[in-house]
């Protein structure tokens, strides 16, 4: 694949991730603290407006994450196969967590008003996103290791 395209796809995977993680943290921790002294009605109105815009950004980010993720996975799949089973386990866990995060995001951003437990859902999503990034970082590291290292580790020793 063209080098420029590979770099752009990598970039297009990081930026939506930044929008999702950074935006969620801002929405959950910074915005409530900033609007605390407003009247309850005003504070809620600000939150709902922010939520509407964040919903559009997050949905676009999820679309970009899926597109770039699928292409990156197809491109890197042979490497993951070489480092089977460790890389495959990490890759599958990364995707599984991503699906859970997407479902929670869609659920908590659906409708005009947030569900009652949207704060808890946001915290769970932030934690899952951190774990997801940890899996992806480890996967990147593992897929660069010599093949025998990962296969030896997974079969009980080096």
């Amino acid at each position, binding site marked *: 694949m063209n080098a420029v395209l590979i770099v752009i796809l990598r*970039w297009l995977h990081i930026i939506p991730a930044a*929008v999702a993680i950074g935006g969620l943290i801002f929405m959950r921790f910074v915005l409530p603290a900033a*609007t605390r002294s407003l009247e309850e009605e005003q504070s809620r*109105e*600000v939150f709902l407006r*922010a939520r509407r815009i964040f919903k559009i950004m997050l949905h676009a980010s999820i679309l970009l994450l899926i597109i770039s993720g699928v292409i990156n996975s197809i491109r890197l799949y042979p490497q993951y196969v070489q480092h089977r089973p460790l890389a495959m386990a990490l890759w599958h866990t990364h995707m599984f967590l991503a699906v859970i995060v997407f479902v929670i995001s869609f659920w908590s951003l659906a409708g005009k008003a947030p569900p009652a437990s949207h704060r808890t859902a946001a915290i769970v999503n932030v934690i899952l996103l951190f774990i997801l990034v940890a899996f992806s970082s480890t996967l990147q590291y593992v897929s*660069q290791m*010599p093949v*025998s290292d990962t296969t030896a580790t997974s079969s009980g020793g080096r």
Partner: protein
Amino acid sequence: MPYWLYDIVYPLSRWLHIVCTTLIVGGTLFFELVLPIAIEDLKREQQLYVFARARLVFRWVVWIGVAGLLVSGIVSLQRMWKPYQLEEFGYVSRWAFAHVGLGAIGMVLGLVLTIGREPPENPVRWMRLNLVVLLVAIFLGSATRHFQLSLAERPREGRMRSADGWMSFEPTTQPTTQPTTQPTTQPATRPSP
């Protein structure tokens, strides 16, 4: 460094670098794009108050993010410092140092925008500029990573080098000519760090 520690430190530093990047970039994006629209119905004084409060809270996010980026960046640079001295890594190191330079500018801008009781004039405009700087810095980081990996996939002395191998790489062992054929086998063990 023992292998087990090496296997913990480098994935952890990569994780820290990505998480801290997302904190700063996503937060700045939210601050610059979402917040102004969310508060536009409030009175002017209330808008200023919410902005000031958001800036005070976001300061912690920026500071934690910058600290994490510095620590993880230093770990990565320490790992790659020796290979960057090599001639064949010349263009990779230029991408890397452009990433470091622009990232540093972005971090300084982020700190300047959140330090002190009063924000600078036109804080949203400065934030927009910072966002562009950060996005370009991430692009440079992505390019650096890609070129590093492409270089690692090239054969050297009939063996595939890995990212781990760079750490123990010695310039004196560099052959004068590059092998032209792909290696048929993977290295049996990891080179000693």
